[in-house]
């Protein structure tokens, strides 16, 4: 499953001279925006994107031993869509282990019943998996606003675009779209320096 994640780095460096992210300018289809600032800079901000339509493993292998992957539409072409499905418990086959905790929306709020190889906007327009940020931004406007200002989401590379480029995460690099809240994690061990050592609760006050 990690291969597609790595492949998310799809080189969509926009036109020459493109450089600095500035918020509001958004193309018609609402791509992850890279706009040109007034000061052309030699390096650009690359926003990671999904490689494309996801594939599902069938559990079978082909004659070369490679797993057989199929697109969502392979099964869903013959399966009737149920618009009321809100939880994996509602399903009697497939997707049984999927953890789904994402507001009060149904599967078909985001998945497109007319073509499962695309996603669905709230106004029922289809949108490609690669443009997932457009989909998420419909509900998560404040996050998108902050993202466009460079205040939301992790990044790597250079603060100074005259010295080098920068790579920014897209929504699903950090958030599982089916359960977007960050899970509980164990922290890295604390430092063992003298200041950080906790005072013993029953320690007597020292006399000076």
């Amino acid at each position, binding site marked *: 499953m990690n291969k597609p994640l790595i492949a998310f780095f799809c080189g969509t460096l926009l036109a020459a001279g493109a450089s*600095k992210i*500035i918020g509001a300018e958004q193309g018609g289809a609402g791509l992850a925006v890279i706009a040109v*600032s007034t000061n052309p800079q030699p390096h650009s901000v690359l926003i990671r994107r999904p490689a494309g339509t996801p594939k599902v493993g069938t559990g079978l292998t082909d004659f070369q031993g490679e797993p057989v992957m199929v697109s969502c539409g392979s099964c869903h072409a013959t399966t009737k869509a149920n618009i009321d499905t809100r939880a994996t418990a509602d399903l009697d086959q497939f997707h049984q282990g999927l953890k789904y905790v994402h507001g009060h929306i149904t599967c078909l709020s985001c998945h497109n019943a007319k073509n499962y190889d695309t996603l669905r906007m709230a106004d029922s327009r289809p949108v490609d998996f690669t443009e997932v940020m457009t989909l998420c931004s419909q509900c998560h406007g*404040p996050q998108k606003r*902050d993202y466009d*200002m*460079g*205040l*939301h*989401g*992790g*990044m*790597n*590379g*250079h*603060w*100074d*675009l*005259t*010295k*080098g480029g*920068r790579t920014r*995460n897209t929504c699903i690099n*950090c958030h599982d779209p089916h359960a977007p809240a*960050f899970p*509980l*994690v*164990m*922290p*890295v*061990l*604390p*430092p*063992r*320096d*003298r*200041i*950080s*050592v*906790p005072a013993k609760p029953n320690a007597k006050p020292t006399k000076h």
Partner: protein
Amino acid sequence: MDTATEPLDSNGLSRRTALKGVGAMLGAAAFARAIAPLTEWARDIPVDDFLQKHYKELTPIDLEIILNRLQKDTKDQYGADVTIKDYKAQEGVKFGYALNLSVCNGCRKCAEACHIENNHDRPSHQSYIRVFEMSKGSMDMEKGNAHYDHPVPQPDKFYMPVQCQQCEHPPCVDVCPVEATWKEPDGIVVVDYNWCIGCRYCEAACPYHARRFNWTKPVIPAVEINPNQSYLSNRIRPQGVMEKCHFCLHRTRNGRLPACLEACPTGARVFGNLLDPNSEVRQVLAHKRVFVLKEELGLKPQFFYFFDV
């Protein structure tokens, strides 16, 4: 005095001569004992090191010699090939840092990244960042808990990483009796580790507990040493000197983002040039409700905290 009157022993030595000899021997032994610490010192600190001038008085040639010597010392003492450079502050740049407390989940990945990037002592698991677990409703970092060890984030807590705030009026600089620490033109407070005498006044003066003391000679396996080093930042510090967060100046003065920012899995950290009105950190100041720690002290930190609203 007539030698014939002195009684001679069987070897033909007078009592006076023998006592003289014993006295000379005792004196020599006492002298050797007295200068023993000096010989110990000479083994650890070469004369070049001892006679080295203050960083600001070094000519480019002096500096070149010193950097070469430090690289060789690292090779000799740690077995690692490193490159130690001296990166200068850029014109028109003043660094600022902002941290979103709404999304920080207290995972300490930033502290770990700092530990690795800055060649910290491995046994003490040292880092320039201390993450405080705070009760919601409290803003007093002194009441924070820096040693929590349970899954994070806890529902009734928020998490506040604290590192050097790069104050506009740094009290640590004011108290240094030898001027071994100062504020650079790009706002970073640095330490000349070779000039520091280890009095720890600065540690006591810092209200953010941001300074660290090298109680022991740092222990780092050669394979783990970050070879990209600079004189004022992450070169391996000697024993007995102070150190502190320098906004990864060996990275940031080359345009790169600090290690703690790149390591943050929640994107809580925002870094940039305060003098550039389009920089991300300026967007925080313009659009978010920002506060600084212990504002009442008037030290004007260049490190800002904010919440998503």
